[in-house]
């Protein structure tokens, strides 16, 4: 059992950091292991935002060397960015092991991601113009506080509270997943994919990379692959209903859209609130009500249903 949530302000921005924190905190009982946010702020021209980590939270508790290693790994990231022609506009420490960089970079993002992730312990959590992906161990209040997410202004967001069932409790296995190498595409998932290894092997043969052993990562990579072949987001999601096996409800966000898909068994919950200027989705209505305390009309999307909204 995990909790997923999504929101989109249509035609305006809002304090999506505070809103998503409240939604995820109310879903804490569905998954206390880790919490993740995919927040879509306002893009600033061609400036890329890169969120990355060079170690797991757990690593920091083991030995003295890790603190020096983190510094060395970060220095190596800086060096490699420079080699690739990227200019670091701003570098911020979110934690000792996780960072937020804004970059001027016009080159190949996949090449950049591969080169950075070649460094031991390094993982790009997100790379995009609006997307900032933050995930760590603990509940929403912990992670939001640690990464100062309250007050984050933006148009749309995804979130996830994780109860680990078949992979580790670490940042690598936490959601959301960035749909490498596509800028600004992220995914959260509640359920279990039974054709994970088959799907993963197929996608690896096509040149995609997997950072974890979490089945949910397959959805992000699957959608990235489809879009790489020219599919529209909604078409890729519709194909996923037939091609992904198991029980799942997932949410996906791009630079300007938010989508949801539910498997043909409808075994995983999703409640939807839809108004002219706001869309809210969550595993439980109580999450939506944390943003809208007054009475609202909600409903469950049906089995095999795919929906996409523009901001």
């Amino acid at each position: 059992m995990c909790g997923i949530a999504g929101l989109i302000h249509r035609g305006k921005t809002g304090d999506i950091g505070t809103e998503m924190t409240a939604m995820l905190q109310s879903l804490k009982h569905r998954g206390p292991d880790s919490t993740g946010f995919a927040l879509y702020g306002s893009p600033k021209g061609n400036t890329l935002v890169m969120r990355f980590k060079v170690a797991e939270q757990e690593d920091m508790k083991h030995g003295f060397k890790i603190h020096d290693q983190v510094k060395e790994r970060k220095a190596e990231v800086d060096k490699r960015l420079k080699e690739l022609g990227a200019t670091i506009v701003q570098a911020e420490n979110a934690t000792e092991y996780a960072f937020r960089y804004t970059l001027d970079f016009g080159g190949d993002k996949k090449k950049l991601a591969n080169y950075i992730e070649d460094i031991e312990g390094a993982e790009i959590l997100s790379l995009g113009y609006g997307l900032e992906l933050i995930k760590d161990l603990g509940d929403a209040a912990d992670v939001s506080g640690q990464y100062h997410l309250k007050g984050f202004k933006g148009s749309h967001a995804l979130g996830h509270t994780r109860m680990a069932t078949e992979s580790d409790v670490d940042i690598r296995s936490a959601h959301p997943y960035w749909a490498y190498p596509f800028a600004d595409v992220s995914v959260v998932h509640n359920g279990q994919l039974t054709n994970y290894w088959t799907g993963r092997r197929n996608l690896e043969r096509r040149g995609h990379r997997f950072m974890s052993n979490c089945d949910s990562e397959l959805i992000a990579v699957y959608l990235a692959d489809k879009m790489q072949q020219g599919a529209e987001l909604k078409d890729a999601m519709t194909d996923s209903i037939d091609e992904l096996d198991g029980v799942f409800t997932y949410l996906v966000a791009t630079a300007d859209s938010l989508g949801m898909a539910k498997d043909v068994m409808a075994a995983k919950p999703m409640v939807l609130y839809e108004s002219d200027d706001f869309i809210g989705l969550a595993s439980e209505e109580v999450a939506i009500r944390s943003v809208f305390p007054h009475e609202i009309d909600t409903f469950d999307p049906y089995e095999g249903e795919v929906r996409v909204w523009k901001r």
Partner: protein
Amino acid sequence: MALRTQSHEMGMHTEKLSGRTQQRFFSPSEEENFTYPGAHDVDFNKRAEFDADKLSTSEINLKLRDLMRQGYGTIVMRNPGAKHAIAVGILNKLNLQIEGSLGYFGCGLIDGPNIHIKGRVGWSCAENMLAGTIVIEKNAGSTFGAAIRGGDLVCKGDVGARVGIDQKGGTIIVGGRCGAFCGFMMQRGRMVILGDAGKNLGDSMYDGTIYVGGKIAGLGVDAVPGEMNELDCQWMERKLKLYGLKAPNGIKNMTKIVAGKQLWNYDNLEPSEKKLIL
């Protein structure tokens, strides 16, 4: 005592019990057999209201218990805020008006109250309901009325998947459409869906009846069309009128679905006896 003798004569008590038995036999002369422990004698004319906005699930349910203990038979609950497991395990008569929406597992394991919900309910509303009525004005989530054994469960809006899964009695009425696998392993009772029904309707149903007013995406294994008769129509007309609902295309044009009874063994043999024959 007559019942006890009869059951022994029928060979229903072949076990050798030692010590204190926990078997209890029903006696209409003993008043305690008509009430549950923890059930309250309430007066419908005694009315109370409370705001659930700042209360937790436990506090809300304890508040309801406390009011019933004091004899309040009509209770209005405001702002439940879609919290889970609200108004569960009420085992006595009660008029409960809920002004707002419930989360998951609302009104489960009830036996007797009449509950009116002005908002929506989440997954698994009225699970294992034994008696009483629940009327929901808006939509409902999946597994609506799972394993319901009696009473009337009515949602005037749309409902998710697996309505009445393992239904063992009672009546479920859906004013709008519903999702897949409704009536899965249904055993008794009636289900009325006035709108469209999703695929695998009535999958592996043992018995019971499903009526559908709209389109059926597909029938499940061993669910077959039945013939609408005059008794079906009269029963449904009375039920729908009771809750202010109407069949969009008329009651007579509804589709009746029953169990084909080909999938399971509908004999009276015990598993050990079957082994001897097979």
